[in-house]
């Protein structure tokens, strides 16, 4: 999977609630029907954290220190919103061209 696609999926599931790595992949599987490979998932998490679009949840307990729980930041929400709005425009244009109506 393209790294940007993986980053969008991670941001999307984190927009709902903070999750740790394994739970993020479970949520992505629920959303798309397939899990991300470990390289795609943790590459996306590392890139998003570096860009400060996600951050670790402070004081999430001892277990969370081994499995870091991440949450989306305000900047992450802005990026996700902009990307989803653009995708929605593309999707609407595509469906119009196909003569279909959005569901």
């Amino acid at each position, binding site marked *: 999977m393209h790294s940007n696609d993986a980053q969008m999926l991670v941001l999307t599931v984190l927009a709902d609630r903070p999750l740790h*790595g394994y739970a993020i992949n479970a949520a992505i599987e629920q959303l798309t029907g397939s899990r991300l490979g*470990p390289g*795609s998932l*943790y*590459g996306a998490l*590392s890139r998003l*954290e*570096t860009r400060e679009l996600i951050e670790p949840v402070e004081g999430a307990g001892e277990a969370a220190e081994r*499995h*870091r729980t991440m949450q989306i930041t305000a900047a992450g929400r802005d990026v996700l919103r902009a990307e989803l709005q653009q995708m929605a425009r593309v999707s609407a244009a595509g469906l119009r061209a196909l003569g279909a109506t959005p569901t």
Partner: protein
Amino acid sequence: MSAATLLARLYPPAVRERWGVDISREVTAAGIRSWPDTLAGAVRLWLQPSAWGDNRSGQTRQVLTVMLFAVVAATVLALRTVTPSTALTADIGHPATSLWLVPLLAGVALGAPLPRPRPASLRRLAVVAARTLAAPTVAVGLLLAAAWSGIAEHVTGPADLALVGYYWATLAFLAVRCCTLVARVSAATVLPSTRRLSVALPLFGLGLAMAAGQSLLAGGRTGLHPGGLAVTAVLAVLAATTVIAGHDLRRGQRTAD
């Protein structure tokens, strides 16, 4: 060590520290089919140092400096397999075929850690260097003793193979210990800045690309043989690695500025 732990260890240190446990757990759960993606993810991150996420701590600079010297060591070993070569020379008598050395050496000079001009730091540097290079120095000494004694000219069969194996094992051991030395001396030296590394890596890559191009051109004229082609491919891969990593570092630097 399990395959999952081994795969997690292939990631850059900063990523491994934050996500190593989770990567290992995910690989264990997903099984063998997740190995290619895990491996590809590690390669992508090594080529993207700006995504490691530890730019302030200096760990990225240390890891990249060691990475540069690991590429230098791999280059020296690859070139040793085709020495002597008329396509890739290293003397001022043949400037056209030695030009590749200029950007390559400039890259090494820019990316080298510099000793701190303080007696305590210099003493520490000398102690670390002596400890790290003692064993390979002995190995090289034994190799030279074997060469000067003339044994190499008289042995045949398995003994000859063993001697050739010892020669390459010694070179590889020396290369690994030199990289270890670069990793260990960081406290006693001034590491190159991110900006310097972002120039050093592409410069070194340019030298490697020139060497690969020259080797390919010469092969095209005189006929390619598998050994020469393999070395050209290795040089090209190393060139791409350093250029891509350097480009990403410069892009990350611009974003940070």
